[in-house]
């Protein structure tokens, strides 16, 4: 096998995980921009999305329907949590709110344990077929789904934030909540939507990648941490930045494992992260 096929294989594996990191990072950014909150429960939406879809599909629900149903359920869950637990605590410190999201993630994980048990669940790939061979490397079809879904989501987000009144209102809220409310924008509703979006996209990430992995109630923690990392590399408020950073993170991981060392790949990746943070304190792509 030639070296090129290796490099291509590393590329595919990097893009696969990178897209997932990108999606999670985007969901985190949306929530952050509008509520100034880092939501630690994001990993649990990832898991709920994947497991809900797995259950629906295993009961015979057609894949596209299961897909959209799961997203909606996750969005409702996110909205509920925001309304019932986050909004009433508006006047507490940011730190306490973040710890609240940690407590929520614990409760959600406990709930997932009760609903789906301890075993790992398998979601069949969205379409059948053999992996495609490109330059000697194998590309699983599900990867195309992951990349495709990510692209569509990003397009929708761009369209929403740039072209729709609701989206522009959300951006206004993020930049200047007081000014926005003076303009008659319902900041409460906007925050609600932001959380729903965030949980929906987080769930989407979980569903898209579930066929490549196995999902169980603790599966959400690591993807969420990687999402945090991508968000910090990309710059906190930047959606585009998070996407690029997520993909970059996936690629760096993959190429470090492949070309340098599989034993110390995590050490190297985290050391690189620290270096990026120290030398580019506001992320690689932020505007300041």
């Amino acid at each position: 096998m030639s070296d090129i096929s290796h490099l291509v294989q590393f590329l595919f594996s990097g893009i696969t995980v990178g897209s997932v990191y990108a999606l999670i990072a985007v969901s985190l950014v949306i929530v952050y921009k509008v509520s100034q909150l880092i939501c630690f429960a994001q990993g649990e939406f990832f898991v709920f999305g994947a497991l809900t879809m797995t259950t629906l599909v295993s009961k015979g629900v057609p894949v596209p329907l299961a897909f959209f149903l799961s997203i909606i359920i996750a969005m409702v869950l996110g909205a509920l949590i925001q309304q019932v637990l986050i909004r009433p605590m508006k006047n507490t410190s940011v730190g306490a709110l973040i710890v609240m999201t940690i407590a929520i993630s614990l409760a959600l994980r406990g709930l997932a344990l009760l609903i789906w048990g301890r075993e790992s669940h398998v979601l069949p790939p969205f379409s059948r077929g053999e992996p495609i061979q490109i330059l000697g490397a194998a590309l699983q079809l599900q990867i195309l789904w992951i990349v495709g879904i990510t692209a569509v989501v990003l397009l929708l987000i761009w369209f929403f934030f740039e072209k729709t009144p609701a989206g522009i209102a959300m951006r206004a809220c993020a930049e200047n909540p007081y000014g926005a409310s003076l303009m008659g924008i319902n900041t409460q509703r906007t925050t609600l939507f932001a959380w729903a979006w965030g949980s929906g996209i987080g769930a989407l990430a979980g569903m898209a990648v579930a066929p490549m992995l196995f999902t169980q109630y603790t599966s959400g923690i690591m993807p969420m941490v990687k999402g945090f990392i991508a968000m910090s590399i990309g710059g906190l408020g930047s959606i585009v930045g998070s996407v690029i950073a997520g993909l970059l993170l996936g690629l760096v991981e993959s190429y470090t494992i492949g070309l340098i060392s599989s034993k110390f790949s995590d050490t190297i990746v985290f050391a690189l992260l620290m270096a990026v943070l120290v030398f580019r304190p506001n992320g690689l792509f932020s505007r300041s």
Partner: protein
Amino acid sequence: MNTLKRYWWLILLAAIAVYPVIGKPSPYRSGLLIFAGIYIILAVGLDLLMGYTGQISVGHAAFFAVGAYTSGILTAKYGFSPSAAMGVGVVFSATLAFLTGRPVLALKEYYLAMATLAFNEIVVTLIIGFEGLTGGASGLRDIPPFTIFGFSLLNHLHYYYFVWTVVVLVIASALAVVRSPFGRALIAIHSDEQAARSFGVNCAKYKTRAYMLAAVYASIAGSLFAHYMGFIAPDDFGILTSINLLVMLFLGGIGTIFGPALGALFLKLLPEITYQFQDYELLINGIILIVVLVFFPRGLFGIFTALRNKIVPRMGK
């Protein structure tokens, strides 16, 4: 009432001293409070950094690990005395904090949090990677019990009193720091770094010192942990532990020294009640935490200040 206000700490000390010997001394009951005490040391140190200096660390378990593994390796493999090993651990932690502190503490909030998280992960992956030295992911075993001047603290009662003496010293020293000029500088940095700088406070130096102090406390806690467990593994020093520490701080009441101590006690003792719920334990723990945070957004310590204000009304408040 005035005597109560002035000597409340004596009551606390008495409670600590008497706890293990009420009824039949049991390694289990002592053990619970030994673990709780170790985490109190961790939490109090972190509070100096987060509550008073306002610097977020989501990777504090890294220094916990450094203390634990330095003590563990030096005593289990090289026959060092536990006190000497603890000393080496403290020096090592302080040095690491100094070297990483300068660049990292220049970051703000979220980015600082991520940098500390990254540092935590680096420490853990290095521990796993250098398995010849640390035992790797399988863990480091045969760590001897702590000895003072040749007297072994294997007995659970002895170790309990030793650990809690350290806890009391840690809390007392933390309170002293907070009330000192150094502490006031930290608080000034927390409320407005720009203003502090304009007053001539060398912010970078003070932040790094606070970071080093927190690291030293964590290292001591780590050494105590290693000698008590007799065995340590990387699983207990990862991000989840660091996140738990954060929860302890906010649950108890950040920036109050006693708050985080209370938070540590609460979080460590909670499973002793909820374990009976078996499969529901995880969900119930989460719900309890949510409820506490909803009703006490300033932390559990708020109860005490509120109670105290009721019993001993403040003048002109």
